[in-house]
């Protein structure tokens, strides 16, 4: 496999984009990524587009071809990939493989979602497409509910407290205040979180990520293109993808996602590093408790200590291992198909030393994107090129 570089990045702000068509959001982000790279767009040999529910929510499919057409790319293979909330991460891995394998010298990964225009019932029904609706769905379970189940066990088994989980919310909301792309950065304290309405016990409103519109894109090239680049590139050290159980009955333990554990192990092995070499992490905090579980599954925090690390400030920027300096899904937003690529966009800025919430001396970053009931996971490890 060849060395792959991220040569260009683009993103819309995450939030509400009522007046912009879904393909236009994707084209804005992708066009910015192409222009920044300095690569001629006719050199792009493949496009992978991550999207979850454009059909039910916007009535628009064939997005990959539509976006390539709008961008003025060649008549190249254009493929939409879907893995619920991990759709963006999967699109990135496919673009990475297209370049790493030698199939093409440049490939585009684009992620997009448009959700805020739909009413809550329609959005909930669309999001519930990500669970096995013939088994878990018939009980009336929801996605927040899945994390309520996980929280209950984490609290009983490890003594994880409401204050510890609230520390995750406060940190990510505060990080989002510094990020111009974030949908809802805020200063929120433990009392305010505790006063927000219960969604599914013990999850409250502040424990849940918002509904978002947005797009993010990355242009990947083979390392031998480096001299042609107009931007400062970042190296891809590893890109791993795994499958976990599609239903709750298949999870032997609801307090861990085996897809994350396996993807992290595969990524560390591919990169030839261990968890302690990572300088910062952008992970899948769709719900506050998810960040605690993910830090443990990724091996950056000892099992059962995710809550303690959060409350002690060890996952803040300036702490032992900064987690979600972008604000994460909780604060930056979660335009489902774009989320995994947005994490990589943020990480590239960190590794260039240009992030608005910069981690000092960041040389290696890790991104983690998880879909459905843990059915799909991607973990990427990125490196500053002089590091």
């Amino acid at each position, binding site marked *: 496999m060849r060395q792959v570089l991220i040569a260009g990045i683009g993103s819309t702000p995450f939030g509400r984009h009522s007046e912009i068509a879904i393909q236009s959001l994707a084209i804005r982000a992708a066009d910015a990524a192409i222009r920044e790279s300095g690569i001629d767009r006719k050199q792009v040999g493949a496009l992978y587009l991550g999207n979850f529910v454009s059909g039910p929510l916007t009535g628009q499919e064939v997005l990959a071809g539509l976006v390539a057409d709008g961008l003025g790319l060649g008549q190249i293979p254009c493929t939409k990939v879907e893995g619920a909330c991990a759709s963006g991460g999967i699109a990135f891995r496919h673009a990475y493989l297209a370049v790493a394998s030698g199939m093409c010298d440049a490939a585009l990964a684009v992620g997009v979602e448009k959700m805020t225009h739909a009413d809550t*019932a329609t959005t*909930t*029904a669309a999001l*519930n497409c990500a669970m096995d609706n*013939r*088994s*878990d769905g*018939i*009980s*009336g*379970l*929801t996605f*927040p*509910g899945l994390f*309520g*189940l*996980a*929280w*209950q*066990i984490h609290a*009983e*088994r490890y003594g994880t407290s409401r204050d510890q989980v609230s520390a995750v919310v406060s940190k990510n909301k505060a990080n989002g205040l510094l990020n111009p792309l974030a949908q809802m950065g805020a200063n929120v304290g433990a009392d305010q979180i505790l006063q927000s*309405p*219960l*969604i*599914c*016990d*013990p*999850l409250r409103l502040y424990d849940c990520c918002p509904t978002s519109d947005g797009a993010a894109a990355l242009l990947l090239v083979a390392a031998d293109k480096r001299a042609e680049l107009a931007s400062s590139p970042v190296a891809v050290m590893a890109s791993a993808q795994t499958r976990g159980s599609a*239903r*709750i*009955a*298949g*999870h032997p333990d*609801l307090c861990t996602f085996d897809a994350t554990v396996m993807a992290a192990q595969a990524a560390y092995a591919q990169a030839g590093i261990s968890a302690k070499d990572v300088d910062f992490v952008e992970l899948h905090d769709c719900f506050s408790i998810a960040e605690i579980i993910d830090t443990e599954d990724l091996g950056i925090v000892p099992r059962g200590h995710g809550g303690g690390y959060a409350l002690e400030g060890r996952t803040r920027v300036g702490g032992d291992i900064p987690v979600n300096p972008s604000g994460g899904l909780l604060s930056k937003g979660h335009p489902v198909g774009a989320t995994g690529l947005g994490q990589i966009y943020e990480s590239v800025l960190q590794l260039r030393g240009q992030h608005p919430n910069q981690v000092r001396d960041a040389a290696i970053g890790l991104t983690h994107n998880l879909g459905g009931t843990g059915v799909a996971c991607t973990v990427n490890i990125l490196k500053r090129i002089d590091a």
Partner: protein
Amino acid sequence: MHIKVLRCESCGTLDPGPRDLCAACQSDKLVLSEAPGAGALVSWTTIRRAPTRFKGQAPYVVAVVKLDAGLIITGRFSGTEENLRLDLPVEAVSEDEGAYTFAEKAS
């Protein structure tokens, strides 16, 4: 009450279903069978914002139960979550369109 499950005729594995091939041996010889509805509570949550088809029922408690027969089922818990704890002995008490409701096991 008993719970409807799938039983693999080749290797005996039980599965809550629906499933096309046995998860253990991939045989397609899955037959409808029954397992005792007694088990232990794995976790629970109270759903206050429900999907449209369950809206009229909210708030309701979703429970994950590990049956004594070995398999895990996602269902409902009858009543509120106030006195629930991990490993609480429970048993199935009713069924509605394939979804089972559990209650604390009468001792």
